[in-house]
């Protein structure tokens, strides 16, 4: 865990709760986020991730509980805290009528930065997100991936200590996602504290030092991706796919199979085992013949399935 540069939490929450009318979006969560780490809220849509992020972003007052950001109260000192945060919202809020550079200039002015400083930083940031050659283009025709990169550049204009990213790569194609991940990884290397939400387990694994698995507004588990997998999942997973006609019968039969656990999904059966290959041999020996089989290591997806009984992207 990266806590070398200080033990004081940048963000501290105790019993943090957010209600909208009778609906409880965030239900009394506790966490401490430290300087230099990349922390992720992993969970399906509606788990309370975005509500948590909005509270940390000082644009949504908590209903109850304690929240301290950079040592200050987000309700009373929201403006001063936001001056030190960078925010990449779930949906881009770029002004598509303006040029790439103008978006950065306008945004920098919100922070009261002198134009000269904004121009210098804008040039460096566009370089960083590989958009220098598009500086004078209008934003409207840019692809989703380029817009996202511009949003990230914009969020860095005030040189924030904490960068909040709400679903940073949702809606991007795989190639664009990898570019975004690469840039975020570089930011992390530079010491920027990243707080992100995601419902992609690969994103969580790639970027996060520490994760909170969120479901129904609460934390189901918390730890590093590696620890979570070790704690909540077997070393290997055997994925079996049967003829749809035989799917149920196979599922019944495999219930008694000597695995740590079996999960029956709509299209596949997952066996959580120590040794996938020998498990497959035993399955075949018992008279079951899967159409396809795959032995893989346990992932956060399995952790989530185990903790909540549901898949992440459902």
């Amino acid at each position, binding site marked *: 865990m990266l806590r070398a540069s200080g033990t004081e939490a940048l963000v501290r929450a105790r019993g943090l709760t957010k209600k909208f009318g009778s609906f409880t979006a965030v239900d009394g969560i506790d966490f401490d986020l430290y300087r230099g780490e990349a922390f992720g809220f992993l969970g399906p849509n509606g788990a309370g991730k975005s509500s948590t992020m*909005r509270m940390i972003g000082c644009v949504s007052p908590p209903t109850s509980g304690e929240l301290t950001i950079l040592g200050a109260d987000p309700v009373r000192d929201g403006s001063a805290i936001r001056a030190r945060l960078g925010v990449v919202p779930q949906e881009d809020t770029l002004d598509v009528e303006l040029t790439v550079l103008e978006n950065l200039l306008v945004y920098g002015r919100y922070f009261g930065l002198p134009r000269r400083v904004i121009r210098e930083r804008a040039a460096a940031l566009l370089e960083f997100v590989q958009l220098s050659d598009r500086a004078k283009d209008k934003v409207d025709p840019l692809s989703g991936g380029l817009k996202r990169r511009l949003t990230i550049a914009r969020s860095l204009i005030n040189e924030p200590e904490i960068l909040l990213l709400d679903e940073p790569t949702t809606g991007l194609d795989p190639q664009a996602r990898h570019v975004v991940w690469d840039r975020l990884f570089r930011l992390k290397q530079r010491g920027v504290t990243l707080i992100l939400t995601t419902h992609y387990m690969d994103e969580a694994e790639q970027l996060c030092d520490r994760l909170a698995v969120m479901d129904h507004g609460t934390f189901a588990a918390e730890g590093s991706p590696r620890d979570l997998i070790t704690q909540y999942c077997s070393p290997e997973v055997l994925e079996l796919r049967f003829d749809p006609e035989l799917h149920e019968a196979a599922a019944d039969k495999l219930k008694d199979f000597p695995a740590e656990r079996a999960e029956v999904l709509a299209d596949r059966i997952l066996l959580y085992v120590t040794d996938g290959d020998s498990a497959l041999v035993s399955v075949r020996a018992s008279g079951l013949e899967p159409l396809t089989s795959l032995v893989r290591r346990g992932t956060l997806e399995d952790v989530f399935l185990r903790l909540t009984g549901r898949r992440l992207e459902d």
Partner: protein
Amino acid sequence: MPVLATVGEPAGSVASGWASSSRTFRAFQCWLTVYRRIWRSSVWSSVLGPVFYLGAMGFGLGSLVNKHGTASLGGVSYLAFVAPAILASSAMNTGMQEASWPVFGSLKWNKIYIGAQASPLRPEDIFRGHLMFMTMRLAMNAAVTIVFMWAFGAVRSAWVVVAWPVAVLTGVAFAAPIAAFAVLAKNELSFVYIFRFGMMPLMLFSGTFFPLSQLPEGLRAVAYATPLWHGVALCRALSLGSGLSLLGALGHVAYLAVLAAIGIWAAGRTYRRRLYV
């Protein structure tokens, strides 16, 4: 780690007043940048609107009216009578336009408010910055209208210079409350009602195109209570250089100023309610 709590400005101090107006100005600058892109199209409505109105009402309708005698207009030509009212009512029009769709769009379309919200700007700053821009647009449009009034020979007094800020105030008196409402609007339909059942009757029954003495007693009392009438009456007196005491003028200004102040106060609250969910 620096302690942020010491940064929080004590309410009401000079420093906090300065920081607050600086934030308002930063929000305003965003609108200037946006406007730099779209000003060409807005010039058409700013220039052609008053020209059409002055031409059609002043000369077209005016030639008919003038033939039948203008005693009820106070003895001035119909053009001179109607021109300052067009100044006031176009200010209302601009104020309402600028405070409805652009405010709604800042949440739903270009998301200017949502982007600004993540910065140190507070909902009040975001509103005031936008209102400052609306005020600028009002000042531009009113100036253009007054120049055309003068060019068309519709101005009777140098006091018309004072009608400029009065027209701006009239526009703000509409813009501020409408922005307070628009930021909470669920869909754009709400604006159609405002324009159809708010702006149209006000334009027709506030002494704009005919003196209120022509209205039946009951309707006249209603007309006196409408904000547009106060703007029209004051602009008209200033453009004609007659027909109003200082006290009467101050009364009109006070009415409009109070309406604007209520709007600004209400918008501070509704913006906060809408943006800090």
